[in-house]
């Protein structure tokens, strides 16, 4: 029962679901580590659908949660998308085997730190990425080191720890598809996403 609820509500509703499930099922409900999304068992539809149609079954639909505890104002949200605003710049690129944020991206990181300071309820995910060379799993760890580096800098600039989740996509989500340094230099990057964008 609980599992089905989780599958239906998706990640946006996980916390709510866990609370709801706890209320519904009471003490019978198994406990989940507090910082882990509840372990959901999902049923999958069988074959026969059009290609891609099945995929939706493994990707729970997003539910728009309503949070009235203090959202960033409409004007500040618009700034994140305004191509004339530095906040719309979301990618930081790296040299080969490097993890430090280069000086040319300092103003970008400072602008995002300022946004997080001024919007304490804003949430950010930083996705680290690598080029395609080497072990996929080792590259997940290298990408994590990149996103962690950006987070560290944002915190030094006044952002709060709980505002930022850092993850890695390793070599799995290249921006450029080529197999040369031209492509690789675009793929060694950290991408910044705000709540609602992931």
């Amino acid at each position, binding site marked *: 029962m609980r599992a089905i609820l989780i599958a239906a509500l998706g990640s946006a509703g996980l916390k709510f679901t866990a609370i709801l499930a706890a209320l519904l099922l009471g003490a019978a409900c198994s406990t989940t580590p507090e910082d882990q999304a509840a372990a*959901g068992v999902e049923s999958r539809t069988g074959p026969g659908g059009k290609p891609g149609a099945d*995929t939706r079954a*493994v990707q729970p639909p997003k539910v728009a949660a309503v949070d009235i505890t203090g959202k960033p104002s409409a004007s500040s949200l618009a700034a994140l998308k305004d191509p004339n605003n530095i906040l719309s710049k979301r990618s930081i690129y790296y040299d080969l085997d490097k993890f430090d944020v280069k000086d040319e991206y300092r103003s970008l990181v400072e602008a995002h730190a300022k946004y997080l300071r001024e919007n304490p309820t804003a949430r950010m995910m930083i996705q680290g990425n690598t080029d395609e*060379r*080497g072990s996929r799993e080792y590259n997940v760890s290298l990408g994590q080191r990149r996103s962690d580096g950006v987070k560290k800098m944002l915190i030094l600039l006044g952002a709060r720890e709980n505002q930022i*989740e850092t993850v890695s996509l390793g070599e799995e989500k290249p921006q450029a598809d080529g197999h040369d340094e031209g492509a690789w230099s675009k793929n060694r990057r950290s991408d910044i996403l705000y709540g609602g964008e992931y």
Partner: protein
Amino acid sequence: MPNLVRTLIGLALLFAVAQARAQLEIIVTDPGAQRSPIAIVPFANEAAVGTSLTAIVRADLERSGLFRGVEVPPLSPPPTENTPVNYGEWRSRLADALVLGSVVTHRDGRFEVRFRVYDIVKQAPLGAIAYVFTKENVRAAAHRVADFVYERITGEKGVFSTQIAYVVRRGAAYELQIADADGERAQYLLRSNEPIISPVWSPEGRRIAYVSFESKKPVVYVHYLEDRKRQVVASFRGSNSAPAWAPDGKTLAVVLSVDGGSQIFLLNADGSGARRRISNSASIDTEPRFSSDGKWIYFTSDRGGTPQVYRMSATGGEPQRVTFEGSYNVSPRPSPDGRVLAYVTRNAGKFQVALLDLSNRQVQVITDSDRDESPSFAPNGRMILLATVIGGRGVLSAVSADGRIKQRLPFAGGDVREPAWGPFIE
């Protein structure tokens, strides 16, 4: 015998799901130098099954690189497992081994294959067995026959009845597929618009753990093959990746960034209980793999400045460095017998599979390609399945542990990567 029948019927249910559109084909690009000639006489009455069982057996044995099928002219009457063997006659046909058998149709429509294996050189019978199977399971039955023949002749278990898992990418679509070890009967377990990496079979072969990026970050799942359910086992804040099964099938090692960095933790595979951190460094510790006796965890770490393979006690403790040659040694995979470690090493910009003899420290690079990844031992340790890139496309290939036999597994219509060889099926 009832166990086998149950197994085969179970397999039928498993295969009733999602047939994948394309299949792997296996081409032996570099056969073994010493292939033993074997005569597999078409089994009497095998036409009743509708598929040539002995053709599948012969293809299995030839693909191993250890055998070469001897052409046998039609014999009249067709010999069966009860026909007396004239060793001199088979010696003159240049066969070192012989398989004779027949297929019987049961009243309930099932079939029974009975066969005997002979050593022609030593002029001795090597054993006989019978398997009952349903028509749709003729391939599974043939693989059982091939496993029996292989084991009686070589003394080691065959892997023809095992399965492999791998990931296919077509454009932006990803599929986690499983197929028989000969590439046939491919089916998908999961289809997604986001990447899937690092599939690993549980020791009993009924579950596969993997990493899916469907939530815009890496999350570890355990997928139950029989009922096609899956469970999130690691979705902590940050990245969750690199699952590895402990031999008990109850514990998973995973790599989490929840405490910062990439560190190795143990989890209960059913998602219960709390995480236990077992690595403790300020560097990257990832790609854990248990030794088959469960005592050690091999892993990749850059604590020495470059990524190298280390090992530590499975309960944690001070790691020991395992690889020393070269500046990039990753993806450790201990062999099933624990004597050898396969890993990926970088040589002059090329990523190749190397084997390290854990007793005498000898290293042998066994591939000559440019971009090898994800080596995976067959459960009998004889072959290593791996992903490589040929002509800009990801393909699977296999190489024998002595480096002599090489196979390619081309796949029509997609990049293939992240292979994982499944366990023996009992």
